[in-house]
């Protein structure tokens, strides 16, 4: 984003006030709810999500002239939000991000193959009325290292295609799919009956060896 390359001329010259305000209002009105939803899913809590949405639209407002019509507005906003999110979280926690290896999800016992998601024959909508399951899902997504979380949220929650998610994350489709698969395997394991029971009991997970 080249927003910082804005020339130091008066505000009235760089952005005709009324036009910029109108454009911003349209952009904001049409996309703020989607961005807030995305931000909540990434951040896992509402205050951080609000900060992220504000920063996103502020960046969009300033960088509007850098927007190229070859992408959709929503993709552009997802991209801005994702970059800010990565920066915000990096500032907050110095811990390096964990890589998820496919091998750690390969079942080594029959029991691991047969982990069940505790929805007891209900539709996903009906199952999600169960608060405990909703919390377990949020917690599982929240525990994902952010680059995997982003792939899962963009693809399985926001409904972007692999190509669109790749454009947002600056990755090729193959890399998006690889991260998505690991993220799903992670959430499956966390959500399974074993995951729920362990979470309640001890807040830790036995590594699969």
């Amino acid at each position, binding site marked *: 984003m080249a927003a910082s390359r804005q020339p130091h001329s008066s505000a009235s010259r760089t952005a005709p006030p009324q036009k910029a305000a109108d454009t911003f209002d349209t952009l*904001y009105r049409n996309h703020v709810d989607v961005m807030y939803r995305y931000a909540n899913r990434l951040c896992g809590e509402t205050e951080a999500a609000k900060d992220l949405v504000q920063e996103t639209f*502020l960046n969009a407002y300033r960088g509007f002239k850098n927007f190229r019509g070859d992408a959709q507005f929503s993709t552009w906003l997802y991209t801005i939000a994702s970059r800010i999110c990565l920066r915000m979280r990096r500032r907050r926690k110095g811990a390096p991000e964990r890589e998820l290896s496919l091998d750690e999800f390969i079942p080594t016992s029959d029991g691991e193959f047969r982990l069940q*998601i505790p929805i007891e024959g209900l539709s996903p909508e009906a199952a999600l009325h169960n608060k405990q399951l909703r919390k377990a899902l949020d917690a599982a997504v929240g525990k994902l290292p952010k680059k995997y979380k982003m792939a899962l949220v963009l693809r399985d929650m926001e409904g972007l295609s692999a190509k669109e998610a790749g454009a947002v994350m600056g990755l090729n489709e193959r890399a998006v799919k690889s991260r998505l698969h690991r993220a799903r395997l992670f959430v499956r394991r966390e959500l399974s009956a074993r995951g729920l029971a362990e979470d309640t009991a001890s807040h830790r997970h036995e590594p699969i060896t």
Partner: protein
Amino acid sequence: MARRPISTRRRLPAAKSHRHEAGRCLHILRELSAFIDDELSHDICGEIRQHLGACPRCEEFVVSLRQTVALCRKSPAPALSSIERAKMREQILTAAHMR
């Protein structure tokens, strides 16, 4: 407390007929998201379906992975109230004009 893996001895007939397929299971597990998302070729899909029909534990694995994805797709997220939406807009515009 370490849990012992479920003994395969009790399921001898299935385990025996399945043992030579173990590598196949692992190979298929790597492809399951692509399978669920319908991204594989017709031939590979057919092979996987055939394997799933013969391998109950892989079949169960796919069911649980599909359910995981379905829950993600339907998971609710909080929405902004109209007051919050308006307040945030003001804050953004104020910040934009300050800097």
